[in-house]
C-alpha cells in the first residue's frame, strides 16, 4: 500500500471519528447537566487521537524502513576492494537502490524474475525510460529483487500497523466522549503543542545554519590562523594548486569588511533621507487618495528582485556615471564603471521602500493626541513633525534604520554585479571595492577543490556576516521594543 493511500485512509478514519464523536456528544447532551465542552470539541479530540499518533508512526515507519532497507542491501553486497569495478561500498549500495527502483517500472512478472545479466536487463529498463549507470553489476540484480520484495513486505506491515493505531485512536477518542469530559482542554493543549512545534522549526533551522557554518569555519581556521583572517589587510587567496606546499593565500577580512560597510554607508545615505521624507509625506501630508496610490507604488520597488537592480547598475547606471564623469573631467572619468558609489546608489534605491514603509508605520503609531497638542498651540505641520512627531518616533526610526542597515550589509546580487571583485582598501567611493557577500559567491562558485582554505574561507566570511547582522538585528529589536513601551 502506498504512503499516500495510507495517509488518505488515516484522514478518512479521522473524519469518521470526528463525526461519530460529535454525534455522540450531541446525543449525550440531555439538557440536564451542562456539558463541559461543546460537541465539536469532542469531534476534534477524536479526530486528533485517530490521526496524530498514526501519522507520527507513518513518518517514523517510513524513515525507519528505508534505513533498514539500505542496511540490508549493504549487508548483502560483497566487500568492495581496490580492484573491484566499483570504488566504494556507498556507491555500490546506491547503484543497487537505483536498480531496485528501476525494476519497479517493469511489469510485475519481469520484475520478480528479471534476466540475470545487466546487459540483458538494461534495454528493457531503457524502454521504460529508466537510465542506469552502465557499471551496474550483475550480482546486484538478485539483491535488488530481494530488496523490492522486502520493501513491499515492510510497507504492508507498516500500513496495517498504522491503520490499527488510527482505528484504535478513533475508538479511544469516541469512547472518551462524556458530558463532563474535558475535550476542549485537550484540544487546546494539542493546538498549543502544534504552535510550539511550528516556532521550534524556525529556531532549529537557525541553529542548523549556524552549526553548518561553524564546522566548516573551524575547519578553515585549522588551516589559516585567526590573525591572518581577522586582521589581515590583504585579500589574496590564490589558487589551491594540488600538492604545492606554499599555496597558502592571504585571507584578510579587513578590505572586504571595509567595502561592505562603505557600500552600505553610501546606500544608507541615499535610502534614509529619501525613505524618511517619503514616509513623513505619506503619514502626515498625503490625502487618503494619494496615499492609496503612492504607498503601494513605492512598495512595488521592494518587490523588484535585487538581481534586476544589479543589472540596472551594471549596464545602465555604471556606464552612465563613468561617461558623465569623463565628460565632466575631460579625458578619463574619475568614476569607474564598477564602483562603491554606483553599487551604493542602486542599493540605496532598493532600500528606500524598506525605510519608508517601516518608518511610516512608526510615524503613524505616534498618537493623534501629540499632533493635536502641538497644532493646538499654533505650531505648523512641519514644526509639529520636526519637534514632536519625529522625536517621539525616533527610537523606532533608529530601529528601522538598523534593520535596513543589516539588509544593506547582507545584500548580495547588486554588489556582485555593480561593486566589482577587486578587494581594494580605499577611501575613494568612485573606485571598485568588494564585499563579504561577493567574495562568498566567488569562493564557492569557482572551480576549486571544496576542502581547501580557498573555499572554506567562504564559511568563515558567512559566519562573520551572520554575526554582524545578528548583532545589528538584536540591537534594532531591542530599541524598537523599548520604544513600543513608551505609549502604554
Amino acid at each position, binding site marked *: 500500500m502506498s504512503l499516500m493511500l495510507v495517509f488518505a485512509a488515516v484522514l478518512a478514519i479521522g473524519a469518521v471519528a470526528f463525526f461519530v464523536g460529535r454525534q455522540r456528544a450531541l446525543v449525550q447532551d440531555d439538557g440536564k447537566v451542562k456539558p463541559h465542552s461543546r460537541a465539536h470539541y469532542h469531534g476534534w479530540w477524536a479526530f486528533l487521537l485517530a490521526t496524530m499518533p498514526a501519522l507520527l508512526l507513518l513518518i517514523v515507519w517510513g524513515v525507519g524502513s528505508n534505513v533498514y532497507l539500505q542496511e540490508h542491501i549493504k549487508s548483502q553486497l560483497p566487500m568492495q576492494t581496490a580492484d573491484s569495478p566499483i570504488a566504494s561500498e556507498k556507491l555500490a549500495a546506491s547503484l543497487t537502490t537505483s536498480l531496485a527502483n528501476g525494476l519497479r517500472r517493469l511489469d510485475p512478472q519481469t520484475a520478480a524474475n528479471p534476466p540475470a545479466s545487466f546487459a540483458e536487463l538494461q534495454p528493457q529498463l531503457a524502454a521504460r525510460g529508466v537510465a542506469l549507470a552502465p557499471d551496474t553489476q550483475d550480482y546486484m540484480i538478485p539483491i535488488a529483487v530481494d530488496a523490492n520484495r522486502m520493501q513491499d513486505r515492510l510497507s504492508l506491515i507498516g500500513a496495517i500497523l498504522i491503520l490499527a493505531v488510527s482505528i484504535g485512536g478513533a475508538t479511544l477518542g469516541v469512547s472518551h466522549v462524556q458530558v463532563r469530559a474535558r475535550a476542549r482542554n485537550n484540544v487546546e493543549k494539542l493546538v498549543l503543542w502544534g504552535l510550539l512545534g511550528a516556532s521550534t522549526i524556525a529556531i532549529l533551522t537557525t541553529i542548523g545554519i549556524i552549526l553548518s557554518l561553524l564546522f566548516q569555519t573551524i575547519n578553515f581556521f585549522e588551516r589559516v590562523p585567526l590573525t591572518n583572517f581577522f586582521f589581515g589587510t590583504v585579500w589574496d587567496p590564490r589558487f589551491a594548486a594540488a600538492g604545492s606546499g606554499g599555496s597558502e593565500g592571504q585571507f584578510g577580512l579587513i578590505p572586504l569588511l571595509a567595502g561592505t560597510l562603505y557600500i552600505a554607508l553610501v546606500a544608507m545615505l541615499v535610502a534614509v533621507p529619501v525613505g524618511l521624507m517619503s514616509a513623513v509625506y505619506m503619514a502626515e501630508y498625503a*490625502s*487618503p487618495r494619494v496615499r492609496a496610490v503612492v504607498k503601494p507604488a513605492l512598495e512595488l520597488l521592494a518587490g523588484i528582485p535585487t538581481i534586476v537592480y544589479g543589472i540596472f547598475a551594471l549596464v545602465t547606471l555604471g556606464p552612465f556615471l563613468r561617461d558623465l564623469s569623463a565628460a565632466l573631467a575631460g579625458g578619463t572619468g574619475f568614476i569607474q564603471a564598477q564602483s562603491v558609489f554606483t553599487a551604493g546608489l542602486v542599493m540605496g534605491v532598493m532600500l528606500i521602500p524598506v525605510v519608508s514603509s517601516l518608518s511610516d508605520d512608526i510615524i503613524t503609531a505616534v*498618537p493623534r*493626541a*501629540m*499632533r*493635536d*497638542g*502641538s*497644532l*493646538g*498651540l*499654533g*505650531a*505648523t505641520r512641519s*514644526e509639529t513633525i520636526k*519637534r*514632536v512627531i519625529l*522625536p*517621539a518616533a525616533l527610537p523606532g526610526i533608529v530601529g528601522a534604520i538598523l534593520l535596513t542597515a543589516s539588509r544593506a550589509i547582507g545584500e548580495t546580487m547588486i554588489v556582485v554585479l555593480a561593486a566589482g571583485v577587486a578587494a581594494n582598501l580605499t577611501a575613494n567611493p568612485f573606485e571598485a571595492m568588494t564585499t563579504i557577500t561577493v567574495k562568498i559567491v566567488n569562493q564557492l562558485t569557482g572551480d576549486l577543490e571544496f576542502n581547501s582554505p580557498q573555499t572554506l574561507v567562504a564559511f568563515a566570511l558567512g559566519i562573520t556576516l551572520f554575526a554582524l547582522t545578528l548583532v545589528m538585528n538584536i540591537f534594532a529589536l531591542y530599541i524598537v521594543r523599548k520604544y513600543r513601551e*513608551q505609549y502604554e
Partner: protein
Amino acid sequence: MNIMTETALESAVNDKMNGTPNETIKMRGRKVCVFYGEKQALFDVDLDVRENQVTALIGPSGCGKSTFLRCLNRMNDTIDSARVAGKITLDDEDIYDPKIDVVELRARVGMVFQKPNPFPKSIFENVAYGPRIHGLARKKGDLDEIVETSLKKAGLFNEVKDRLHEPGTGLSGGQQQRLCIARAIAVSPEVILMDEPCSALDPIATARVEELIDELRQNYTIVIVTHSMQQAARVSQRTAMFHMGYLVEEGETDKMFTNPDDRRTQDYITGRFG
C-alpha cells in the same frame, strides 16, 4: 448621568456667582454648521463667548459640543472630511477668512484636550514648546521666566520645580493635565478651549483643575466642554446646552441650572434625560 438635587445645584451656582460679569463678547458664532463628510454634526449654532468668563458647553455624548469647541480654533481643519460653514469671529474678525493665518489664530485661542497629552519631552521643554515656535523669548532668561510663570499660573510650579528636566510623561494624570494647561498659557492666548479637561482625572485632581480654571478667568476667556453638571455649575458663568447638533439654549449658568427655558435642559441637568 449625575443626579443632583436642585438645592445642591443652586448652592453650587451661588458660590460661584459674585461680582458683575464682563459683558464684552470675545468670540461670536453665527449659523455655524459642521459636516463630517456627508453627515451634518452641527446645525446653525449661534453662540457668543464673553470675555473673562467661563462658558460651559454641556449636552449628551455626540451632541456636537466638542465639534463646536474645535471650530473656535479651527482644529477641525486637521480632520480631512470636516467642513465648516457659517461665521465665527474673534474680536470681530472672521477666523475662517482666508486672510487669517491659522497658526496665529491657534496661538490666540489655545486648547487643552480631554486626555492629558504632554509631549515625550521634559517638563521644561513641554512648556517652552509654544514660546519657542512662536519666538516669544528674546533672551535665554526670558524663556526660563515664561516657563516659570506659566507653571505658577497653572499651580504646578511648586510640585515640579526640582525636576523641570524630567520627562513630562512621568507626572501623575492631574499634574499632566495642569502641565498641558501651563503649556497652553505659555503662548499667552486670549481664549483657552478645554475639551473635558477633567474626564481622565480623579476627584482631587479635578478639584485642583477647577480651582485653576476659576483663577485663570481673571486673565483669559475660557470655553469648557464638560459631561459633569456639577463641574459646569461650579466653574462656569454661562452655560450652553447642545442636543443632536443643535444649540438648545444658552444663558447664565445659575438661570440654566435653576430655571431653564427648555424642557430638554431641565431633563438633562437633573439626570432624567432618556
